[in-house]
Every structure is written in C-alpha cells, then in structure tokens.
C-alpha cells in the first residue's frame, strides 16, 4: 500500500515537473516568436485553417466557469465549449493551446494560436493590440450580500463594509461608484472575500455574478443575494491585427449562433445563469 502510494506520488510529481517544463518552454516560445501572424500562408489565416483542417485556440483553464480542467484533467468550461463549437462549424480539428491568463494575448500575437477565446473582456487597451469579434458572452460584477442587509444601489453602500478582491474587475469598478463613507476591505483571493461575506466580517462584497451564485449555493443558510449590478463586461474572441478574413468569419459565426441559441445554451450549461442580450458590434 505504502509502495503504491509512493509510486502514485512519484507519478504525480513527475507529471507536475513535465508540465512545468512544458509551460516554461511554451512561454519562451511566446517571447521568441514576436512576429505577428507567424505563418500567413497563401490566402490569409482563414484559408490556412481550412486547408490544414486545424484551428488553434487559446485555452485558459484556471477561470471557472469559463475554463477549467475536468476530473480527467481535460480542458472544459464555457469558453472551451465555445471553441469546440467554432471548430465544428468550421469543419476542422480543434487544437487547444494552453495559456495562463496573462499569456492569452501574447500567445495569440506570437502566432501560437489563431484565435483567443478565453473570456477576454472587450477593453480599449486590448483593442489597441488585437481585433475583437462581436461579444459571445457577458460577465456581470454584482454587489452580493446576506438577505438582511439593505443595499439597493451604490449610495446604500455608505457606512457599510464592502469586501473586494485585489486585481479583479470588481476592484477596478466598485471604488469608482462607492460613496466616501463606505469602507472597502481588500482581500488577496476570491475565497477569502467569500469567506468574509459568509462569516459577516463584511456587510456585502463585490464579485462576478457566477461567484456570487456559487457562494450562495454552497452556503444556503447565509441567504446570499445579488443586491445590484455594478457593471457588465462583454467578452469576445480576438484575432491578430490584420486577420480580417478570420474576423469576418467570426462575425458571421456569432450572428448565426446567437440566432440559433447555441451561445445561450453553452452559457446556461456552464454558468447556470441566463445569458443577457448581447449587443451587436
């Protein structure tokens, strides 16, 4: 028994080592090939994808419910399902290129992936380096809290303790609307923010609607509810600047799948939240 455990331990350790090594070499590649659109091919990226019958898409697997590793350590999540749908509609094979969150755009620009589909919110800063397709999903930041707390809008946060997580969209948006007398309590990770809300150390907390739902579902006694929506960010697929053929395909693809309800279906399946109306772009 002991020996078996040791073997398993060694195997896991070895696998982790290999994975780390692979990640390091991959990130080196990302910095090495800085020419955008590494293999332009004869008629642009779309032609090449169809000719080679292979679509390479970024896969970021540490952001539930967008990208996760399932029980068998395979990529899963709403953005992975979206990528699979795109490859299916193109009639080509899907190759997932695993990236970390900060690597999503560099991997695309370095030519390691043809499309980035990794819950990239559409922002001005990003639009300066990549081209966005129309949004295929939305991420709402809400103020959530126990039922007893009376918070209906930003003004109601006055005098209350509001938990936030550093380096997140909520940290970027909530302070701007919070009244001066609200005290913003910062935590380093979302788990601590949730714990502070459940244990009553803060009156309410800012987080994504998914996070609020998952903490509410896991702690039914705390009676967590969404107080109000702070902002809604739309995320979209992104391509390298100049890949207009591929971008045009993505426009058509989003239009058709929005119409057929495929996008809403994927979103609902992974987030258990209904997809809001996606604006056109």
């Amino acid at each position, binding site marked *: 028994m002991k020996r078996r455990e040791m073997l398993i331990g060694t195997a896991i350790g070895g696998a982790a080592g290999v994975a780390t090594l692979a990640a390091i070499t991959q990130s080196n590649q990302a*910095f090495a090939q800085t020419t955008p659109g590494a293999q332009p091919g004869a008629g642009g990226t779309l032609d090449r994808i169809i000719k080679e019958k292979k679509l390479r898409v970024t896969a970021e697997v540490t952001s539930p419910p967008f990208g996760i590793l399932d029980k068998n350590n395979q990529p899963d999540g709403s953005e992975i399902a979206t990528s699979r749908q795109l490859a299916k509609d193109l009639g080509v094979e899907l190759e997932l290129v695993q990236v970390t969150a900060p690597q999503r755009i560099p991997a695309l620009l370095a030519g390691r992936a043809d499309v980035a589909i990794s819950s990239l919110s559409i922002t001005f800063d990003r639009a300066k380096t990549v081209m966005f397709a129309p949004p295929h999903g939305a991420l709402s930041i809400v103020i959530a809290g126990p039922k007893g707390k009376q918070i209906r809008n930003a003004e109601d946060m006055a005098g209350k303790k509001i*938990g936030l997580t*550093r380096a997140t969209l909520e940290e*970027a948006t909530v302070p701007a609307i919070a009244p001066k007398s609200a005290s913003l309590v*910062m935590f380093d990770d979302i788990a*601590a923010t949730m*714990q*502070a809300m459940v244990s*009553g*150390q803060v009156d309410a907390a800012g987080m994504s609607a998914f996070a609020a739902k998952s903490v509410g579902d896991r702690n039914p006694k705390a009676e967590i509810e969404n107080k109000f929506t702070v902002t809604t960010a739309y995320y979209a697929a992104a391509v390298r600047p100049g890949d207009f053929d591929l971008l045009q395909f993505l426009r058509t693809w989003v239009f058709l799948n929005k119409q057929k309800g495929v996008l809403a279906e994927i979103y609902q399946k992974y987030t258990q939240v209904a997809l809001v109306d996606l604006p056109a772009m």
Partner: protein
Amino acid sequence: MKYVFQFGIVWDHLPQLLEGAWLTLRLSLGAFALGFAVAVMLAFLRTAGPRGVRTAIAAYVEIIRNTPFLVQLFIIYFSLPALGIRMEAITAALVGMSINFSGYATEILRSGIEAVPKSQIEAGHSLGFTRMEIFRHIVAFPALRTVYPALASQFVLLMLGSSVVAAISAEELTAVTNSLQSTTFRAFEFYFVATAMYLAMALGSRVLLNALYWFVFERRQPLREAWSR
C-alpha cells in the same frame, strides 16, 4: 525583454506605503508588549506552577508553535464570528500576533528560567522568599538576560511575519503594496521599495534592541564594576 523601471509612481504613493509601514510597526510593538506580558506569566507558571497547569501551558505552546500562523489568523477572523466573537481586521491581527508571539516567547523564557542555577533558587528559599519573590528578585533578571538575543530575534521575526495579516484585510505594509501594485501594474518597483522598508525596520529595531540591552544589562553590571574598581 526590456523592462523600464518607473520608480516615480512609487514616490507618488509614498504616504500610503508609510502609513502601511506605521501600522506594521504598531501591530508588531503591540503584539510584542501583549505577547511578552502573557509569556512572562505563562513561563512562571510553566516552571513553578502545579503539574496540571504546567501540562496545559506546555500544550498551549506546542499548539501555537506547530500550526501555521495564517491558519491561526483565519480561525480568529473567519471562524470566531460563528461563535459570536467578531473583531475588526486590525484587532484580529493584533490578537493573532500576540497569541502567536506568546507561544514562542514562553518557550524562550522557560529555557532562560531553567538556566538559572538551582543553588540560587535554593538560596532564595533559605532566605524565606515566596515563589513569587524568588521569581521577581532572583530568577527574572538573569533569565531575561540569558534569552535576550533570542527574544530580540523573535521580535524581528514577528515583525516580518506580520505581512501575513494582509490576508485578513489588515492594511499593513504588504497589503498596501499588494493593492498599489495591482492597480498600477508596477509590481517590481512596489515590492522592491516594500522590501527595502522591511529591511530598514528590521535593522532599525535590531539597533534599538541592542541599545536597550546595553542600557538594561551592561550598564550596571555588578561584576564588571567590582573588577574595575
């Protein structure tokens, strides 16, 4: 890869960093004072108390010294509210640091007390001193002197370890640095300056503690005075 350092932004936020450092110092000094007071009592009872009390204190010391500080903090901040004990983050940090420090300091003081020669304590008994009087007049001073370097090191460890309380939202130096770097994306610059501030505080407190040692123990040393006469 070329990285252009921009320290200008750090100077813009210097007041916030200094405020964080000030809270770090206040927490450390507060925890040192409270923890030390508790530790003196515990160390006395650990060596001179009844058997049951001695065992209980030994258990307390072992639990504190063999569990992660971060987990102790989480219990105080996140778990105690379930029992109706709710503290602000800074209070929880102070309580956690004091308890943690008292565990280590009790053990340090105990070793100092046990290093006092048995004959001196017997001499106290023969003079009709009570246990309390023996502790105060015979044991305390030499014991403290023996373990002073260890205590001083423990204080520096306490101060550096205080960075952990950022996790329960106490806005000390590390928490302030984390917030600033996540909004300015100047991680290297802010962590560099924060590191320098910790270093300055640690070295500064070592100098002050050494001066205190000289002032309390070296300045009036009966043996040396006797020799130099």
